[in-house]
């Protein structure tokens, strides 16, 4: 018997226009000239344009001294970092600025670099990189915060972009300098189709969909944090052609004693006729010969 608890069920869809668009996305078109353009946009000290390129099946990477900028071929996702400073502890420094100051620094960086439009961003949260040490023999310990990462969520047509994509993270080192950023933000080509709101599935449908799916799998306990409505954008390694509306429900699966738990996210298409597959398929298990003692 599966026990499912929805902590914050969605009573009704958020206020929407008469139609919700499904957008087609541009092909990422990752090449050397695009990466050079991004390097210029980052405009950080030390990035002069005389670096070298490396290629692998997933990324095209430009490196100049300690500065690295790469683009994912599948998504166009950008990663920039200063390899001497990004997430690096100098052994003594700690963050002295507030989260509000971190947000201002991140906004200034995005405005100056024009990597994304700040008007399409909403603040998701500020995270912190924490370091610690402890001596076994004495129990002497020390802890510090050495950076802040300001994370923005993309908004499209006043709807949040859910999932690993549609996010911008700006990393700020202890001295208030930007040490890196990650951007997963696929370019929209245009409206592929407009769906009348009346033809969208209801939140109730999505929650029942989840219940049926996990009950069939026999999971004893499920705690659903909330039901969200927005567009789904995938991670950096995934190709994606359309931006479509979805219901997304983060949840915890557990046994009755909660000795074991695992987090996952369940996605239900909001359109009655979604285009293609929304999330990548689960990898099939690799067949192995039976192992003997």
């Amino acid at each position, binding site marked *: 018997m599966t026990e499912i608890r929805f902590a914050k069920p969605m009573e009704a869809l958020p206020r929407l226009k008469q139609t919700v668009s499904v957008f087609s996305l541009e092909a990422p078109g990752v090449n050397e000239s695009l990466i050079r353009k991004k390097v210029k946009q980052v405009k950080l000290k030390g990035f002069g344009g005389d670096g070298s390129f490396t290629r692998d099946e997933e990324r095209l990477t430009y490196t100049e001294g300690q500065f690295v900028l790469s683009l994912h071929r599948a998504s166009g996702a950008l990663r920039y970092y200063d390899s001497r400073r990004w*997430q*690096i502890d100098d052994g003594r420094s700690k963050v002295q600025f507030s989260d509000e100051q971190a947000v201002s620094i991140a906004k200034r960086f995005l405005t100056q670099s024009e990597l994304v439009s700040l008007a399409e961003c909403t603040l998701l949260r500020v995270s912190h990189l924490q370091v610690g040490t402890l001596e076994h023999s004495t129990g002497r310990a020390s802890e510090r915060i050495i950076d802040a990462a300001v994370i923005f969520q993309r908004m499209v047509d006043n709807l949040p972009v859910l999932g690993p994509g549609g996010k911008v993270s700006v990393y700020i080192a202890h001295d208030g300098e930007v040490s890196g950023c990650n951007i997963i933000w696929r370019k929209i080509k245009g409206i592929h189709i407009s769906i009348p709101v009346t033809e969208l599935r209801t939140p109730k449908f999505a929650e029942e969909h989840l219940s049926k799916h996990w009950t069939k799998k026999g999971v004893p306990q499920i705690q659903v944090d909330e039901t969200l409505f927005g567009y789904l954008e995938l991670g950096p390694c995934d190709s994606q052609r359309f931006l479509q509306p979805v219901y997304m429900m983060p949840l915890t699966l557990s046994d009755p004693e909660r000795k*074991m738990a695992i987090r996952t996210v369940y996605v239900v298409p909001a359109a009655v006729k979604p285009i293609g597959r929304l999330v990548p398929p689960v990898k099939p298990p690799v067949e*192995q010969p039976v192992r003997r003692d």
Partner: protein
Amino acid sequence: MAKKGHTIVFKFGNDNAWETDFRHPDSKRKDATRKGDSLNWIDNVNFLYFGDHGGCNSTIKTICFSYSHDFCDGRSDTWKLGVKMLKWMALNCCDCVLNTDPAHIAAVWFPPAHGIHMIFGFIGPGHDSWYFRDVGKNFANDAGSGKPLANAWLDDAYSDWQTAHPIAMAYGATEEEAVNRRENETINWRDYDVSSPNWLAWKWRD
């Protein structure tokens, strides 16, 4: 990692992964019918990656197996990590530690350390879903490419939109050594032994 020129010594999935692969032969475990065999398996390699369910029973880290051989769970109080060859262990499962209280981290991870350099895992729940399916591949690619391991793990296993909080821990005879490993160690440090695990240095993102 094999794509980067490293050798895969074993790759056991589902019923082929056993608790005895982790248990040290000297460890006593009630109701065990077989001796631990870690010296022929997990401690016969330099780099170990484990993905499944996991837990932490106060100060004992547990990992789960789909097949009972001798048990369905492995317990860190039966492990001697690094006593032979193991340098790095990544646990893609829940509860590498329950929280980041230094005393808790120390209580869980000093006892099984016998030469291992670094451990990678999650604080509290791990994730098993479509958006996490490439964590192992990405970490292996970064590690195999010679990137500093702690940053590679934090980068590959962190989720800025879900509550996945990776932690990387490094041992050292001194604080300087543990911090140096945490910040700079790559797989090229394989032969730079931890002479005594007297210090732990860790980093994590909230």
